[in-house]
């Protein structure tokens, strides 16, 4: 570990990405930025996985490519990462589309404000006293009466 070879450097990079992504998930208030932090986190995890299948003196796992009989790198982590990348982007696209709807209904992306509005709306719907404190918005259920300047969400049918 003292000798700083490039694999070690790359491992540090992967762990750095994971740490930065995790910090972003906790620190950020803007939902969109949290999604971007998730992208960074996933990139770090994928990098770490591929690094685990790497060996120094090996070639890409394709037959008839590079010197014959040479050791090849482990194909399984690569397959796993392929799968993980596609799953990750599917989830991100899903999150973006829900985010668009939330922004249209509430006009904000701030996670704390959304949480407060959520508690308030739920309390109204359930018929219990809305939680005090925070900025409980006037206007009641957003679905029926949106904030000024904002159209209520379309019903799609």
């Amino acid at each position, binding site marked *: 570990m003292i000798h700083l070879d490039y694999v070690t450097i790359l491992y540090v990079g992967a762990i750095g990405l*994971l740490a930065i992504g*995790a910090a972003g*998930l906790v620190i950020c208030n803007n*939902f969109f930025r*949290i999604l971007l932090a*998730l992208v960074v*986190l*996933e990139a770090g*995890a994928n990098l*770490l*996985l591929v690094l*685990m299948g790497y060996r120094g003196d090996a070639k890409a796992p394709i037959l008839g490519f590079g010197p014959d009989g040479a050791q090849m790198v*482990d194909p*399984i*982590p690569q397959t*796993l990462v392929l*799968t*993980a990348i596609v*799953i*990750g982007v*599917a*989830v991100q696209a*899903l*999150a973006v589309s*829900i*985010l668009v*709807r*939330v922004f249209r*209904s*509430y006009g904000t992306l701030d996670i704390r404000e*959304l*949480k407060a*509005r*959520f508690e308030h*709306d*739920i309390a109204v*719907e*359930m*018929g*219990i*006293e809305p939680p005090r404190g925070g900025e409980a918005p006037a206007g009641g*259920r*957003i*679905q029926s009466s949106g904030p000024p300047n904002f159209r209520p*969400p379309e*019903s799609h*049918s």
Partner: protein
Amino acid sequence: MNGVVLPVVLPLLAAFLMQPLAHKSGVTARLLGPLVLAIGLAMLVQTWHLAQTDPFTVTFGGFAPPLGIVFYVDRLALIFAIAAQLFTLLLWGWSMDAQFDGEKKAREDALMLLLAASATGLALSGDLFNVYVFYELMAVSSFGLVVLKDTGPAQIATLRYLLISAFGSVIALLGIAFLYAQTGTLNLAQLGELAPKALHGPAGLAAFAFMLIGFGVKAELFPVNTWVPEVYAVAPARIAGLLAGLISKLAALVVLRLLVVVYQDTPAPQLLLVLGTLTVLVGDFSAWRSKDFPRMISYSSIAQLGLVFIGFSIPGPLGVLAGLSVALHHLLIKSGMFMLATRWSGSLDRLAGCAKSAPVATGLYLLFALSLVGVPPMPGFWAKLLIMTGLAQEGSVVYLVALGVVLLGSIVKVHYLFRFALKLYGRADLPPVRHSLMELGPAALIGIAIIAATIFTVPIGERLRAVAEQAADRDAYISTVFPDHKTAAVSEDRR
């Protein structure tokens, strides 16, 4: 025997074809889902006899286990696979609305089918990454089902749920990566074989902790369960029932498999015990404080999941039996409770006096509550008794603390469940709420099942004991997947 893949594959096929079919013929599309699930159910029930004595494996693509993916079919897996198909069918959205939207319905049906397929696959799979893929499929389709109601709060709850889930998936993937880096395999049986040498060190246990947090998101485990009350309060009640009843149990099943096959005789169960105990505490006290029916039962579901994990952390067949019986009991009760919540979605105060207007629903609630609390002849009592004897037998301090917490949780549970029951019998000052037949039907079926389980406690207990003994047998798992143990020799040479 290889037909066991069909209950996983056919719903996927039906889901892919659902939308084109809905354009051609709406009626066929609406009938397709239940039909496919019924076929899958029938096939799985038939398989039960095959797995009666010995578990067996199903390989894919003709590749022997460590190379290819493998399904491990024992009775534990079959119970949950059958439950997956049965409960999706039971809680199917039989839309009777006048303004019926065929396209939306087709999408919803497709998502339900994907959920059933992924749950079945998760129960049967014997390959860690395959488990991860099915877990993700389960997560994504559940997002869609939660946001089905199309209200602002539902969207916010889904978004928060999605973020926690995505974080959990990354953590679980890291755990899987660490396991792979230490053993070079993803097959659970081979992991079990290599575990005593490779995985029982600190790095191996860290991998377990990562996977526990990752899979714990769906299993409502303590630090990552903040989504539970939000989502269950806004999701359609039958979806909440499905998530709380079925999906959480499947995630717990993954943890159980890891614990039994890979992490036997390690400190891993203690970690599970601590988290499970905290989960019970958090769940029961939050339920006690909550003021509306859906959130009360969702917090109570967290507490029950904590009990399941406490059960699983007791080593040996007794622990598996205890956790399994709590899990199955809760699967029934909570699905029924959430079916009641379709109409009882308001605050506890608003439901006062429902005993007069809705006697059947109130009766069912009382039945469920009695069993949940653990009044002696009911099945809930036996499940809780098993956990307590198991904890008492272990005897070390951590287990005794957990025992105390379980007792404390029970007392709190009695208080909040019957406080609500008293309210139901109180004075009515609001117009009565009535359930429709479609909502009460499944709940009534579950009620009948509970009564039947009370009457036939002894034979059911015997069966479950056999299931638990089969499931807790690590060597049987390994020798079923690798009959000739050749791979063990190969891996010995390589090291």
